[in-house]
């Protein structure tokens, strides 16, 4: 699990590297949650979601957009995810906890997941992701 923040003036740009696509998406979720709610996130409840899209970039945008939606309406903060991707379909088992203002209010609300600046690339050792969160 690793990601770094790259310089971006208006928004938040993240780079993540992982050996598999499943782990890469999991890192992207971790980055999104950290930007929004900080590092103190526990796994007390779990939730499963399924997403289907035309390609890896769309799958990532749709997955993270679904996370933004669930997080806001169910007031949940996710700590980790077990992700399985196959044939353009994603199944995720998410772990998280209810939003706690005393621990989770220090982040930035992410308005959306943009395709601008998004890339999922791969070489023999694994995958790399660049993504911009609109805050």
């Amino acid at each position: 699990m690793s990601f770094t923040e790259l310089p971006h003036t208006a928004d938040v740009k993240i780079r993540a590297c992982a050996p598999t696509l499943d782990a890469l998406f999991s890192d992207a979720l971790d980055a999104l949650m950290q930007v929004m709610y900080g590092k103190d996130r526990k796994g007390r409840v779990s939730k499963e979601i399924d997403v289907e899209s035309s390609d890896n970039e769309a799958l990532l945008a749709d997955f993270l957009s679904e996370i933004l939606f669930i997080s806001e309406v169910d007031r949940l903060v996710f700590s980790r995810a077990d992700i399985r991707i196959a044939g353009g379909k994603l199944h995720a088992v998410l772990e998280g906890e209810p939003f706690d203002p005393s621990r989770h209010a220090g982040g930035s609300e992410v308005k959306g997941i943009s395709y601008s600046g998004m890339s999922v690339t791969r070489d023999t050792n694994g995958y790399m992701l660049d993504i911009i969160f609109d805050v």
Partner: protein
Amino acid sequence: MIEGVKRIDTNEWEVPEGFIPGMRVPGRFFLSESLGESLEPGALQQLANVATMPGIIKNALAMPDIHWGYGFPIGGVAAFSLEDGVISPGGVGFDINCGVRLMTTPLSFADVSGRRDLVDQLFHAVPTGVGAKSSLKLSPRSLDAMMTTGARWAVENGYGVPRDLVRCEESGCMNGADTRHVSAKARQRGIPQGGTLGSGNHFLEVQVVREIFDPVAAEAFGIREGQVCCMIHCGSRGLGHQVCTDHVKLLEAATKKYQIKLPDRQLACAPLTSPEGREYFGAMAAAANYAWANRQMITHTTRQVLSTLFRIDYEDMPLVYDVAHNVAKFEDHVVDGKSMKVCVHRKGATRAFGPGSADIPPELSSIGQPVIIPGSMGTSSYILRGTETAMERTFGSTCHGAGRIMSRSQAKKRMSGKEVTENLLKEGIIVRAPHENAIADEAPGVYKPSDEVVRVVHDVGISRLVARLSPVGVIKG
């Protein structure tokens, strides 16, 4: 200046056709030499990308607060022909009808200076920040009415006075809202957030008019030196974000269907004449109306606090104006000597209609539309007026703010929220936010100097300076 860019005038630059393949028109942007030092190549690339879109008229434009966004650059403006042009959520943004309004009060600087109770009460009255919930329980029917009639719904439900509507762009309600194309998800997000400020660069400020540049216009706008005003900056919250997300996906399919070639997926678009294009417009207008109702509700809460604390009349706090700075609209403009209806996208740009325009309040017809340019926390905000030059050169548009020059992570490393708050207090500015990180993120110095941005639009003539305001109390989202 970045290589390949041509200087047209002191503050005007051109991105020629051929800068990237597929450009249909040149890009034009307005920038002083000093602001040019912080111009990002990514922002110029995005301006050139806009110039490749079908049916674009004259130029892809950018205002002096241009910076790197997604889809259009921030500060971007483009008009599209109704016959062969397109509409794109990437030219509006996730925060549909993010905008700003200014309200005057009968109070003077001495009445509010050092009044921490005022800032505290406003902070407690207006829900702010990540995860903030409204105390209002909107019914699904009320949400629909809010999306259909915008600020008018708010006024009819006791959140303002009819005079407020006259002083909003579009009278606070865009025609053509079609709530059938607002998804169940967007509605679910919209219901608990009515009257909330949000986070990021959104704010509610108590400001004082420090300088008047144009006494005639200032008098017409109801502004005098030393007067206390309140400025509200926010948008359509989760509802608007979801409308954008949903329709980017729908329009991606449409882009393929109509065989439109684009250099950036975030520019996903559809012909204005297509069902997909019309559906996005209907949903976007509904989200824009939600945002107008939202700003109206926050105005109401602000008036209630001021009214109780200072024993002033609710009616003595009139609205100067309310502008949208993330929106696409059908407007009449003169193109090659002929008046025609076009679809103008403004992404981080403000409408700045000049004198005589039919779309501004009749009492301001000889002056031009009030333009409100928020500064960053602790720096000046400006009131300008729209001009004929804007009508001729920028489809009646001007800048929308200062534009960031420093990332949030750099900002946090440079100074803590606590330090920023203490420094601002030394200048007489009281800041409240749900968390100190929100203050560090938006500290003075992370934005371009707003004075320089407005000086450029004033010099180019696409809006003219009327007044300068500075904050004494800041509620950050």
